[in-house]
């Protein structure tokens, strides 16, 4: 791949609205295309898409291909692949980007292999240097980063959330909206979604919260998380957790922050009783300020933290709640 002038963004839509990561990807695509005088294409499949296409244009897409059909009500790779493959055949992009979400992580490798190319997953930095598209991604559980390039075209990559700035929304931005018919043969969809089980806890708020109070093994149990919940309430924030805490059932899995959980980038991340393993930090390293509370002064989490308290969180959490409530008065 020589340049990155024509980009294709696969947009993910929830309840008729492109997810925030789409806007982050468009911000990145816009920056890459503007430097080379290229074009930003987007493709979106769904059912009941409403103004999703217009929204993508307002956030930086030049052309948007939209297929709105009931068969796309629920994501399945088998259903998504033929139409996306066809769209990419029409656009002939230099690079294709997809959000690194459960949908994107499922779709991107399939699409890459169908196109005879490879994919770099979970990229947190992308640039063009000497005509080469350089994709940076964490590896070894976040302990290292690698920069890779692709010999085959188009280069596919998935984009880690909270790493790129979205373009500001411009409602009068010009762009071409192409409504298309699906070429999918429904009989080729081999999998079937039988049921969707939504987690009762409001884990989605975690990703947009300005303040996250996260608990780990040091919470010692559900009681610890009750205190963490009260602290989060006092701060107007959301509760997150390490994998250890989720695996032990102290907290629902939708709260897990990290490599195999969610990526958050709040203004303030308070890690309580969390050791700071690389795989955990992978999900919170982009927080503006990290605060650590831990009994072990050598816990790795302090190396990522601006402020730290060495001490027992079960004594510190009630004290913090008191001080914050006093501040509010």
């Amino acid at each position, binding site marked *: 791949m020589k340049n990155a002038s024509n980009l294709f963004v696969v947009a993910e839509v929830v309840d008729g609205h492109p997810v925030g990561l789409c806007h982050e990807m468009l911000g990145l695509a816009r920056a890459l295309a503007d430097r080379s005088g290229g074009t930003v294409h987007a493709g979106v499949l769904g059912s009941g898409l409403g103004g999703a296409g217009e929204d993508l244009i307002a956030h930086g897409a030049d052309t948007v291909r939209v297929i709105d059909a009931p068969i796309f009500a629920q994501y399945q790779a088998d259903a998504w692949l033929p139409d996306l493959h066809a769209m990419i055949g029409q656009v002939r992009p230099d690079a294709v980007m997809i959000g690194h979400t459960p949908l994107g992580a499922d779709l991107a490798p399939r699409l890459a292999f169908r196109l005879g190319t490879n994919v770099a*997953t979970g990229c947190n930095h992308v640039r063009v240097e000497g005509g080469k598209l350089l994709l940076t991604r964490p590896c070894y559980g976040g302990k290292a980063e690698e920069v890779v390039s692709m010999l085959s075209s188009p280069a596919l990559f998935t984009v880690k959330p909270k790493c790129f700035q979205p373009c500001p929304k411009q409602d009068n931005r010009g762009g071409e909206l192409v409504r298309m018919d699906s070429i999918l043969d429904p009989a080729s969809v081999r999998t079937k979604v039988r049921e969707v089980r939504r987690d009762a806890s409001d884990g989605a708020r975690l990703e947009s919260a300005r303040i996250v109070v996260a608990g780990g093994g040091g919470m010692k149990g559900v009681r610890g998380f009750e205190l963490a919940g009260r602290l989060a309430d006092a701060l107007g924030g959301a509760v997150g957790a390490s994998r250890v805490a989720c695996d032990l059932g102290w907290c629902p899995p939708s709260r897990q922050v990290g490599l195999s959980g969610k990526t958050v980038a709040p203004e303030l991340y308070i890690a309580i009783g969390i050791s700071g393993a690389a795989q955990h930090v992978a999900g919170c390293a982009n927080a503006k300020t990290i605060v650590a509370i831990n009994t072990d002064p050598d816990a790795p989490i302090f190396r990522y933290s601006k402020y730290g308290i060495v001490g027992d969180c079960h004594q510190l959490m009630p004290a913090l709640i008191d001080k914050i409530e006093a501040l509010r008065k």
Partner: protein
Amino acid sequence: MKIVVCVKAIPDPEIAASIFRVDEAAKRMVPLPGTRSVMSPFDEQALELALRIRDALGEGSITLLTLGAETTRSIVKHGLSLGADDALMLVDPVFDDGDSYTTARALAAAIQRMGGVDLILTGRQAADGDCGVVGCGIAELLGLPAVTFAMDIVVTDGMLVIERALGEGSEIIEAPMPAVVTVSHEVGKVRYASLRETMKAARKPVTAWSAEQLGLDASELGTRGARRVLERLYVPVNDVQCEYMVGETPEELAGNLVERLHAARLI
């Protein structure tokens, strides 16, 4: 029912960041003295699901499939002592320094050559590269359906019923066989090797195939077949300085922190 579990040997993913080093010139991780390769944890969870399926059905065979150097033998032994029936190792210098594409290519060719496979399990991602590509790649190359991030699999009436972990819960997916399923840690606790299985493991068949035996040309494999070029590998710098709060009591420590956060307009 014939199940193949793809397992990758990797450096222990839980070693502390403070002792983790890379050789930037060679673009490789520096192995820690005295440490051994382990089975990538998600692959161990994939094997656990395979064992649960076999337990539930009361029949079936489980084959471990791994591509790697001779050092991967230790993880094969581990898998056999957990209860897998046999193992196939792809060992050949031409596989070296490949990418997710060439790896999927070789594994897919091996699965095809084995024949009669009903279910192919992989980890959601290998815990060294963290790519999460090979499983879906195998599915595409073999023209099979794929379901990712499985936390549970039940086989009923020749169909797979898979619970797939999502960010906000899970979904239940039905898939025909043969299929590829990638497995996530929500599977929960994996079993330990029993003495009985460990004793049996030494006698279980372990086969090794070369690229030629797979019917693949060297130009499609390893460095020559790779689509990905590794430009750089490094440990990112982290220059945060931590200010530790001082205080005699929890109240004093908490008060100092709240003061700092308030002054910084964070709360």
